[in-house]
């Protein structure tokens, strides 16, 4: 493990911003988001976590899949795959874990999604360990940690006079070879350093195991807790692992006389009332309680059953708790399931 001074890191980031698309936490009109930065001065260093996760950089809110053109009798399809390199700086371990979970579905499960996969291949993750856990964070309860480097390409730990750097993957090594960074060795080895990197950890909460959820399918609790739900989509959109999307063909206004349309996909959420409405008008999740129940079962039952990772699709980042306008709290729901399972 090596160490670098803050000034050296800033200069390095400036160079990076010139050559590749550098994405880092930035304040836009007072809101903290991962956005492209032009230099290191735009980066915010003190934060718990940005409002949206880095999911946006791999699975954007709206994405064009292909364009469809009708030219006379022929139909021309043009695939629009992403290209270009991006480096995301300041990634929290919970966000990187979320990308791992998305990868298990988008990339590792056949048929794999070329758009997500292409973006994932073109991206290097530079993590920044948390010094303290936020009031709503619970990553440690789900097998993560505020300083977990496992899903990063390069990991940074802020220390008194700089940053300790840990290269985790070949991709990370390649980035540091391409853009050299002045570093000094540190005296401790990895295990010593990790042990000494104190981070106040929150008390762990009990996560109900996978089989505990479906048996409570008919529990009236779902209706009770969902009564205040607004059926907005905030929880799904801020979540690092929520991944539902809608696909539609829409007209493109082009002046060249060709009949053009594009196929786009964009974020969707099972919380909205019409999500599961099918042709004919039947809606098996008409009630808010049914939709809320689905959200939790999807995370803690369906995903572990269906994905090779086998873990719950929750990273414990706590964004949903902060963002919900009516304080529907995932930790309260889990506590209830634990209580009624005993």
């Amino acid at each position: 493990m090596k160490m670098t001074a803050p000034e050296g890191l800033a200069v390095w980031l400036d160079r990076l911003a010139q050559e590749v698309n550098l994405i880092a936490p930035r304040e836009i009109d007072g809101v903290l988001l991962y956005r492209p930065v032009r230099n290191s001065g735009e980066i915010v260093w003190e934060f718990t976590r940005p409002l949206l996760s880095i999911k946006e950089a791999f699975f954007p809110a709206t994405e064009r899949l292909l364009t469809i053109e009708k030219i006379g009798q022929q139909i021309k399809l043009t695939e629009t795959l992403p290209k270009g390199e991006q480096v995301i700086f300041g990634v929290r371990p919970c966000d990187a874990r979320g990308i791992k979970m998305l990868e298990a579905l988008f990339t590792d499960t056949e048929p794999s999604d070329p758009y997500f996969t292409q973006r994932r291949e073109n991206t290097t993750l530079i993590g920044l360990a948390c010094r303290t856990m936020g009031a709503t964070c619970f990553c440690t309860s789900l097998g993560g940690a505020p300083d977990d480097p496992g899903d990063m390409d390069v990991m940074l730990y802020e220390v008194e006079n700089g940053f300790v750097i840990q290269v985790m993957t070949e991709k990370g090594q390649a980035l540091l070879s391409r853009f050299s960074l002045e570093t000094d060795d540190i005296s401790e080895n990895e295990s010593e350093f990790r042990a000494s990197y104190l981070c106040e950890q929150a008390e762990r909460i009990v996560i109900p195991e996978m089989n505990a959820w479906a048996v409570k399918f008919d529990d009236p609790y779902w209706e009770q807790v969902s009564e205040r739900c607004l059926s907005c989509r905030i929880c799904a959109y801020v979540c690092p692992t929520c991944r539902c999307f809608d696909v539609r063909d829409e007209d493109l206004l082009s002046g060249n006389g060709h009949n053009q349309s594009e196929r786009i996909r964009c974020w969707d959420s099972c919380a909205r009332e019409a999500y599961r409405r099918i042709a004919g008008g039947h809606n098996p999740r008409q009630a808010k309680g049914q939709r809320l129940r689905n959200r939790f079962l999807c995370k803690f039952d369906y995903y572990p059953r269906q994905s090779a990772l086998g873990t719950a699709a929750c990273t414990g980042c706590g964004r949903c708790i902060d963002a919900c306008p009516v304080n529907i709290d995932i930790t309260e729901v889990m506590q209830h399931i634990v209580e009624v399972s005993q």
Partner: protein
Amino acid sequence: MYEPRIIGYLCTWCSYTGADTAGIARLKYPANLRAMRVPCSGRVSPELIMRTFDQGADGVLVLACHIGECHYDSGNHRTAKRLPVLQTLMAFTGLEPERLRLDWVSASEGERFARIVNEFTEAVRALGPCHWRQKENWVRYLDLQTKTIEILPSEVGG
């Protein structure tokens, strides 16, 4: 050369007929106007007007019956109240209010129709192209590379 694209919403009973009257009298008015016939000006809703601007119109002209002459009694009353407020709202968000105009034309007022269309077209021409619609290709972080994958003969008649 910029030619303004004007969309006109003309109500069936008065202003559309007024446009016909202008045509019969061979009155000249600019060809920039694309007339859309609606049953009543009261049908013209904010989402219709905003969709029109979203699709690239430079100006929208709504011509209604004079108050008291609406075929449906009070449809134009609603328009009279709603459209100025819509104008305020769109001006508040950056659209020049001169691009949206509400006026009154009866079935026999061919000259009035031609005059209004002339005036409006010139006013919109003076304002220049409308910058309301934003070009969107969904790119936020990465550029797009395109790859043509198929050309299929269409089985549906062209």
